[in-house]
């Protein structure tokens, strides 16, 4: 059921190569970078962001919400400081007080833009925890995404994410793998007797998956297929729009975000899907659920649900029956930020775990206040951020141990990767599992 160590180490090695494999970034002069960054911030700033940037009192409380600051106590990870350049552009160019701010606020430089790459890619996962602590109510995480857009446009996105975004945005493949990998994965499952209906002309539900489920976390894909079949839904996976991951969305390339999202949207419209199910892949959920409409240009003509959300709903409705896991031990559930805090999916995964009869022992803090795994928003791809992730893992491991967990269940591939990496490096023996895989393996006959 769990993923083999060799496969995981192979995957890590592959990710480790990304920065070398990355095509060279577009050459840009310092002036161009500054101009592009500024224009991106200027055109994208919205009223609530403008008011947020006006209201910061520099109290520093946001640092105490950030897992990177909490784990390192290094002041440079203070969330609001990650918005420093965005703030300065806003204050000098858009703010109602720009005439005064220009006197008091330094202009940004290309060197600063380069320095900020580390702050918004390596040491921020847009987990949104700081947006909950801020006494002024500043939505910091959202503006980190804006800052990433500025840097990405200025050709300053971090190498690994640039590589993934370009490949997905331009060629539609990932790690060189295309729809043939999906066909292969479907065949593997077919041999196990699990049917994956590819490219049905019409279907109620379009299930999207991800390259990571086709290669590494096949247990999650398997679980998804078994559940869908068990429910007897009209469902399909489209070879034209099967990839849920959206690296352009994470890295800040809105063009690539749109390109990747449109493949899924068009596939869903083509089969007449009423529902699109997003796999266990953190950022894929907001990329379509919350920001898909912006890419599409109008409201999406279908509902977007995360697989764990879907499962929880079906279990609660009595449509899906599961067996109680014998001697499951103490299980803790890690809320992925993109699903939980910034997604609103808290109860459904727990609903599923309850149905499985496990002794659910919550970590503290949990749900909306849960700490990030330390590697979300594409951070897990960045090789140089590994030491930082290791520190956050220590934090998370402490929480898991305090909860007395025998096994950790989550519903996000990137959380799973980070925990597995941390566990492997620190020889932590507890299993780290997929909720979907767990449900899929324990379906009632």
């Amino acid at each position, binding site marked *: 059921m769990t993923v083999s160590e060799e496969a995981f180490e192979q995957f890590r090695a592959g990710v480790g190569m990304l920065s070398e494999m990355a095509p060279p970034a577009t050459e840009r002069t310092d002036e161009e970078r500054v101009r592009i960054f500024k*224009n991106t911030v*200027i*055109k994208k700033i919205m009223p609530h962001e403008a008011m947020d940037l006006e209201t910061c009192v520099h109290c520093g409380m946001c640092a105490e919400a950030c897992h990177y600051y909490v784990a390192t106590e290094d002041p440079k990870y203070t969330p609001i400081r990650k918005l420093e350049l965005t703030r300065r552009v806003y204050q000098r160019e*858009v703010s*109602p007080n720009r005439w005064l701010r220009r006197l008091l606020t330094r202009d940004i430089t290309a060197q600063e833009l380069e320095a900020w790459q580390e702050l918004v890619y390596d040491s921020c996962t847009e987990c949104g925890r700081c947006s909950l602590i801020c006494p002024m109510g500043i939505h910091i995480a959202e503006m980190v995404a804006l800052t990433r*857009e500025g840097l990405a446009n200025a050709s300053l996105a971090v190498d690994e994410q640039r590589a993934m975004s370009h490949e997905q945005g331009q060629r539609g493949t990932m790690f060189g793998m295309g729809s043939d990998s999906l066909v292969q994965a479907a065949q593997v499952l077919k041999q196990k007797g699990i049917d994956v209906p590819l490219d049905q002309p019409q279907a109620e539900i379009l299930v999207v998956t991800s390259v990571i489920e086709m290669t590494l976390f096949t247990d999650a894909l398997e679980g998804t297929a078994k559940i869908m079949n068990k429910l007897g839904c009209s469902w399909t996976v489209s070879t034209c729009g099967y990839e849920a991951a959206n690296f352009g969305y994470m890295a800040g390339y809105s063009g690539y975000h749109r390109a990747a999202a449109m493949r899924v949207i068009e596939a869903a419209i083509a089969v007449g899907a009423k529902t699109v199910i997003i796999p266990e892949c953190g950022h894929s959920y907001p990329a379509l659920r919350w920001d898909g409409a912006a890419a599409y240009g109008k409201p999406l003509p279908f509902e977007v649900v995360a697989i764990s959300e879907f499962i929880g709903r079906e279990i609660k409705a009595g449509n899906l029956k599961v067996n109680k896991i014998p001697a499951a031990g103490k299980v803790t559930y890690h809320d992925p930020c993109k699903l939980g805090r910034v997604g609103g999916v808290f109860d459904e995964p727990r609903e599923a775990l309850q149905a499985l009869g496990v002794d659910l022992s919550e970590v503290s803090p949990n749900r909306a206040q849960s700490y990030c795994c330390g590697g979300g928003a594409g951070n897990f791809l960045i090789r140089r951020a590994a030491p930082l992730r290791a520190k956050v893992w220590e934090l998370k491991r402490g929480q898991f141990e305090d909860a007395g967990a025998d096994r950790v269940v989550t519903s996000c591939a990137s959380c799973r990767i980070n925990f597995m990496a941390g566990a492997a490096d620190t020889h932590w023996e507890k299993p780290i599992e997929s909720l979907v895989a767990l449900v899929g393996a324990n379906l009632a006959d």
Partner: protein
Amino acid sequence: MTDNKTLAERLRERGVSRRGFMKFCAATASMMALPPLMIPRIAAALEQARRPSVIWLSFQECTGCTESLTRSHAPTIEGLIFDHISLDYHHTLQAAAGDAAEHAREAAMQENEGEYLLVVDGSIPLKDDGIYSTIAGITNLSMLEDVAAGAAAIISVGTCAAFGGIPHANPNPTGAVGVSEIITDKPIVNVPGCPPIPTVITGVLAHYLTFGRLPELDSLNRPMVFFGQTIHDRCYRRPFYERGQFADTFDDEGARKGWCLFKLGCKGPTTYNACATAKWNDSVSFPIQAGHGCIGCSEPNFWDKGAFYEPLSAGRWGTPAALGAAVVAGAAIGLGSAALARKRQAEASEEKDI
């Protein structure tokens, strides 16, 4: 006109014993707000004090200051001090009139050149060469300059002489000013008040008699001993202020209980004078004790400092119309600023995303 008797001799002639003299000295010390430690020094000095010549000039005034000083009808300390000086010219009090009076003044000026004290009450009009007030055909301005030239020192009695007072109040049609606006080369003591406290006037005279010089003055040339503290500082109703107990109207419970009059516009906190301790009418009372707030009559420009019944801490916020204009202006600039920002955003949108 001056004789050479000392004050001690004069008192003795009046049948005041040595004990009486010492008591007089104790009362004088108290009046001058000097510590009892100084009594022997005062006694020694007063024993030797000679009778000074005093010329009193009244200009644009209401005679209230003179009334204040002469209203005593018993052998008071003020009376004794006042009796001791040689008042050689005072056109309200003196018996002589017309040419005789003016001759008396000129004679005193000649005889005591450089030694006489000049007391002034009333302000001096400057507009149109000072023609708005004349005595015997002489403008106040010219008489003041003339008499001040030979004076040892000048005591400006009352707010008008000290700071221009009521004639100086807006719009000041006669261009009235106080003495110190005109005379700058003589020592001047201001004893402001409308009217000033009589014991303060005599206190200054007593000090001059005792020590042969003027008392220590503050930045407005007022004697520190009397004007060093505010009415509020020495007010017996101060505890109510601290406790937050105030009269809200002149006939409410607070007013009846004698609570603080700050809310009713009392200017005690910004008024430097000795009313709260020296009091009026032979120490019977003073305005606050009578239930009315201080109007700050001894302060410069007291007449133009806003309503007497407006609390001291009230602000002058401007008119609702101006405030409305500010709202409109703010909205206009804000909308303009947003419009320009949107224009800038539209320009920036030329830069396409990857």
